[in-house]
C-alpha cells in the first residue's frame, strides 16, 4: 500500500491521536471513534482494524462510546460509510500510535526503530529486549497530531476474519448495555404525552390529577410527567391524559390518494440526467414504449425498542445527555439551538439502543429528556417513548411515486429512458435546513418551525433520486426528481432513502423491457451493463439460484440489481416467490461486492438482515392515517414480517481483490424489493406496481388487467 500523502478525512479533522486512542498502564487500549454502534457491528469491525495496525490483541482493545466532549467528531453514522470513512482514519491513527511506541522503545534500547517488533501488544528489541504497550504507556505522549507519512499495513491478523461481535455476550445475557438500562443514582423516569393528533394544541390541563410525587412539565403543548417510580409515572400519565383538552384540526392528506398528494407540489425540481435527445445531441429514437407508474406508501422505522434517552441539567445551565442518536454532535448543537444554550455546555454521550435504520426518534426523545430535566435540575431523567408514539410520531420514510418510460428498439436494445420521481425529502436530521429538527421544539410555547424534509446533495448520494439513475448503459436518458417542499408529514432518512423504491421501479421496468425485447431478464441486463463488478454479482446470484430452471405453477423467480448510490456496493438478488392464498418469499439468493471485507460474517449479517427487512417493507408495510393522526400505531395495525414468513437468505460475497471497502448496510434494500416484484410478476403473470405487494394488491392488479 502506498504511503498516504494526506491524512484520511476524519483524521485530518480530528488529528490529535489521544482523541482516538489511549493506552493504559495495564496495557488496555481504549479506542474512541465518532461512529456509533447501531446493531450493525461497526465497533467490532473497527476494533479489528485498530488491533491490526497496533499489532495488539483484540482482547486488549476496548471500544468506547462516542462522546462529544472526548473523542473525534465524525458526523453522522449513516449512508453505509463507516468502514470507508472511519476505517482509514482509525487505521492511520493506530499506525501512528504504534510508531510512537516503537520509537520510544528504540530510544530506550539505543537501537534502530526498524529492528523493533510488536506482536500481541508486546514490544521486542533485536537483542531480546522486552517491553509492552502497558509498560511504555506513561511515557508516550499521544496528545500529538497524526503524521500523514506513517504507513498503514496492507494486511493484519484480524481484518478479513469472522471476529465475533464484541457486544453480543452482554446483550444475550441481559447485562445492562442499552440506554434503556441506564440507572443513574437518583434517576427519575418520565413519559411525554404527545398530542392526540398532528397539529393539536393543548388547551386545558389539570396537573393535580397527576398525584403526589409526580412532577408535571408543560411548555406550550409539550406535556410530560416525571417521578422516581416508573410504574407510578405511567399511571399518572394516563390520568393526566384523560383530563387534558386539546384543540385538533385536520392536517393530513388523503391516505387513499397519496399519488395526488405527492404530485400536487409545490416541488423542488432535481435534474439528475438529461442527455441525447434530451439535450439536443441526438434524434428521437423509435421503438416500443414501456410506460408505467409505480407507488410506495410511507414506511416506519419500527425499531423493536421505542426510543429512549437520559438527560441531566447541570448547575452551570448546561445539560448532559445519553442518547442512541446517529449523530451526537449534531444533536448537541440542535439542542443548544432550540434552547438558546451555548453549544459547548451540551454534552452528549452515545449509549446503545435497539436497531437503528435511519433517522428515527432517537434525537427527539433526547430533546424530550432535556426539556424534562431542565424542570428538575440535577436529577437525571430517563424518557422512554411508548410503542404507539414510536410508530406514530417518529419520522417516516417518504411515500413515493414514479413514472417510467423506456423505449425498446427493433434490435431489442433500450433506446431511451425517462424517469420522474415524486417524493418528500429524505432528511430532516437535527440541524437540517437551519432548524433544530427536534419534534418537541415545534410544540413549545415559543415553537421552532419544522420545514419539509430536504434531500442530501446528489454528490452525497441524493435522497428522493438516490439510485434514480440506472446503472445500465442507456442512451437518451432523462431522470428528474420532484421533491415536495411543503408537507404536514415528517419524513427523514431510512435505510437506502429513495434508493429502495427507485430500484424497485427501475428493475420492474427492466423486466418489462426484456419481455418486449423477447430476452431473458438476466441476459437483457448483462447486455446493457458494462460495469464488470455489476456483471459479476448478477452472474453469482443467478448461478446460486440456478437461474432459468423450471419452477412449479404459482411460483416465480425474479431478479433485482443495483450498485448502491451508484458509488457503493454492487448487489444482485434472485427471489423465489410463491403466490397462492398469500404472497410468500421462499428464498433470496444475494450476491454482493463490498470490496475489501473487514468482517465477512458481519457483511453477511448485514445483507441477510437488509434482505429480510426489505422483504417486510415490500410485502407488508404501510403507515396508515386518517386526516388527523397516524392510526397504524401497534404491531397489529403496523405488522412486520413474523418468523414464519422470513425467507431463507443466501449470501455470496465477491472476492475483495484489493479494492477499497464500501459499506454493506443498505445495499440489499432495493435489489431485494425488485427481485420480489419481478418474481411475483413471473408467478402470477401480472405486474403489481403499488407497494406493498399484498394479496389484495395482487387481486387489484389482476382485476385491472
Amino acid at each position, binding site marked *: 500500500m502506498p504511503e498516504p500523502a494526506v491524512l484520511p478525512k476524519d483524521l485530518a479533522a480530528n488529528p490529535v491521536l489521544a482523541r482516538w486512542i489511549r493506552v493504559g498502564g495495564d496495557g488496555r487500549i481504549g479506542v474512541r471513534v465518532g461512529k456509533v454502534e447501531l446493531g450493525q457491528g461497526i465497533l467490532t469491525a473497527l476494533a479489528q482494524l485498530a488491533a491490526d495496525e497496533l499489532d495488539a490483541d483484540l482482547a486488549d482493545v476496548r471500544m468506547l462510546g462516542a462522546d462529544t466532549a472526548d473523542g473525534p467528531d465524525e458526523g453522522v453514522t449513516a449512508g453505509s460509510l463507516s468502514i470507508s470513512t472511519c476505517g482509514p482514519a482509525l487505521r492511520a491513527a493506530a499506525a501512528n500510535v504504534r510508531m510512537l511506541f516503537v520509537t520510544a522503545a528504540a530510544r530506550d534500547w539505543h537501537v534502530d526503530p526498524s529492528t523493533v517488533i510488536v506482536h500481541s501488544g508486546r514490544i521486542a528489541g533485536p537483542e531480546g529486549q522486552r517491553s509492552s504497550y502497558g509498560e511504555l504507556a506513561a511515557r508516550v505522549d499521544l496528545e500529538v497530531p497524526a503524521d500523514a507519512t506513517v504507513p498503514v499495513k496492507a494486511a493484519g491478523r484480524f481484518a478479513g476474519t469472522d471476529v465475533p461481535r464484541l457486544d*453480543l455476550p452482554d*446483550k*444475550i445475557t441481559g447485562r*445492562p448495555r442499552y440506554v434503556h438500562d441506564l440507572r443513574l443514582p437518583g434517576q427519575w423516569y418520565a413519559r411525554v404525552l404527545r398530542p392526540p393528533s398532528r397539529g393539536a394544541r393543548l388547551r386545558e390541563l389539570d396537573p393535580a390529577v397527576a398525584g403526589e410525587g409526580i412532577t408535571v412539565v408543560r411548555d406550550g403543548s409539550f406535556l410530560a410527567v416525571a417521578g422516581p*417510580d416508573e*410504574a407510578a409515572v405511567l399511571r399518572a400519565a394516563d390520568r393526566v391524559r384523560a383530563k387534558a383538552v386539546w384543540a385538533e384540526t385536520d392536517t393530513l392528506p388523503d391516505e387513499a390518494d397519496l399519488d395526488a398528494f405527492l404530485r400536487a407540489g409545490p416541488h423542488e425540481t432535481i435534474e439528475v440526467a438529461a442527455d441525447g435527445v434530451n439535450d439536443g445531441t441526438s434524434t428521437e429514437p423509435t421503438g416500443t414504449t414501456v410506460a408505467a407508474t409505480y407507488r410506495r406508501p410511507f414506511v416506519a422505522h419500527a*425499531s423493536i425498542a421505542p426510543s429512549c434517552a437520559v438527560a441531566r441539567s447541570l448547575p452551570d445551565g448546561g445539560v448532559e445527555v445519553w442518547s442512541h442518536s446517529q449523530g451526537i454532535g449534531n444533536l448537541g448543537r440542535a439542542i443548544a439551538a432550540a434552547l438558546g444554550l451555548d453549544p459547548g455546555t451540551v454534552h452528549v454521550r452515545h449509549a446503545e*439502543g435497539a436497531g437503528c435504520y435511519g433517522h428515527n426518534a432517537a434525537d427527539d426523545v433526547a430533546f424530550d429528556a432535556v426539556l424534562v430535566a431542565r424542570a428538575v435540575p440535577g436529577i437525571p431523567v430517563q424518557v422512554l417513548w411508548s410503542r404507539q408514539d414510536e410508530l406514530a410520531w417518529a419520522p417516516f420514510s417518504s411515500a413515493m411515486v414514479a413514472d417510467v418510460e423506456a423505449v425498446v428498439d427493433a434490435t431489442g436494445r433500450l433506446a431511451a429512458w425517462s424517469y420522474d420521481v415524486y417524493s418528500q425529502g429524505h432528511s430532516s436530521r437535527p440541524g437540517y435546513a437551519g432548524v433544530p429538527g427536534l419534534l418537541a421544539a415545534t410544540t413549545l410555547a415559543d415553537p421552532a418551525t419544522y420545514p419539509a424534509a430536504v434531500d442530501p446533495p446528489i454528490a452525497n448520494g441524493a435522497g428522493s433520486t438516490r439510485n434514480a439513475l440506472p446503472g445500465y448503459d442507456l442512451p437518451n436518458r432523462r431522470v428528474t426528481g420532484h421533491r415536495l417542499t411543503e408537507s404536514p408529514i415528517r419524513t427523514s432518512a431510512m435505510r437506502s432513502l429513495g434508493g429502495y423504491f427507485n430500484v424497485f421501479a427501475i428493475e420492474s421496468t427492466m423486466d418489462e423491457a426484456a419481455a418486449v425485447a423477447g430476452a431473458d431478464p438476466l441476459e437483457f441486463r448483462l447486455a446493457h451493463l458494462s460495469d464488470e463488478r455489476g456483471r459479476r454479482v448478477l452472474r453469482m446470484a443467478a448461478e446460486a439460484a440456478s437461474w432459468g430452471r423450471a419452477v412449479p405453477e404459482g411460483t416465480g423467480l425474479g431478479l433485482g440489481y443495483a450498485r448502491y448510490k451508484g458509488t457503493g456496493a454492487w448487489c444482485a438478488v434472485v427471489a423465489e416467490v410463491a403466490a397462492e392464498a398469500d404472497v410468500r418469499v421462499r428464498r433470496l439468493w444475494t450476491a454482493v461486492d463490498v470490496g475489501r471485507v473487514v468482517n465477512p460474517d458481519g457483511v453477511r449479517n448485514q445483507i441477510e438482515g437488509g434482505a429480510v*427487512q426489505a422483504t417486510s417493507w415490500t410485502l407488508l408495510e404501510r403507515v396508515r392515517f386518517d386526516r388527523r393522526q397516524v392510526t397504524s400505531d401497534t404491531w397489529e395495525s403496523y405488522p412486520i414480517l413474523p*418468523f414464519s414468513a422470513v425467507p431463507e437468505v443466501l449470501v455470496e460475497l465477491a472476492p475483495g481483490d484489493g479494492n477499497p471497502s464500501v459499506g454493506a448496510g443498505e445495499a440489499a434494500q432495493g435489489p431485494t424489493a425488485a427481485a420480489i416484484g419481478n418474481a411475483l410478476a413471473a408467478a402470477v403473470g401480472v405486474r403489481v406496481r403499488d407497494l406493498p405487494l399484498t394479496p389484495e394488491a395482487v387481486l387489484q392488479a389482476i382485476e385491472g388487467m
Partner: protein
Amino acid sequence: MTTLLINGCRHESGADPDTPLLYVLRNELGLMGARFGCGLGLCGACFVHVDGAVVASCDTPLWSVEGKSVVTVEGLAPDDRLHPLQQAMLDEQAAQCAYCVTGVIMSGAALLRRSPHPDRAEVVEALERNLCRCGAQNRMVRAVLRAGGGDA
C-alpha cells in the same frame, strides 16, 4: 407486599400489585434481560418464564405471579454460565442489535425443555410470538436447532 420467587430467590415487592412485572424486574431487581418493546405483549422482548410458561412481563401484573416461579434470562443458567441456547446464539452470531434476543432465548429455551430436539417447523412456531426488526430470524432459528443438537 407481594412475595415473588425470581430466579429461585425470594423477593418482597412493595410496588402496587397492578404494576407490570417488567418494571419490578428492571427497577427493583436490576434484571435488565427482560426489555420493554410494546407494553401489549405483542413483540416478545419482555418474555420471562412463569412456572415454565412463556409470559410477556410487560402486561403481567405483579399480583398474578405471587407465589409462582419467575425465571428471567439471567436465571436460565446457574452462576455466570451460559444456557446452551445462549452459547448457540453466540456461535451463530444470531443478532444485530440484539434487543429482541433475550426474549427469543426465553421462547427457545421453553421449547427446548419440552422438546429437546425440535425440528425447524417446531422452532419457527415457538418463536412466532417474537419480533425481530433487524432480520436475524434465520440465525436465531439455526441457533435453537443447534442447541437442540439438530442440523442447523
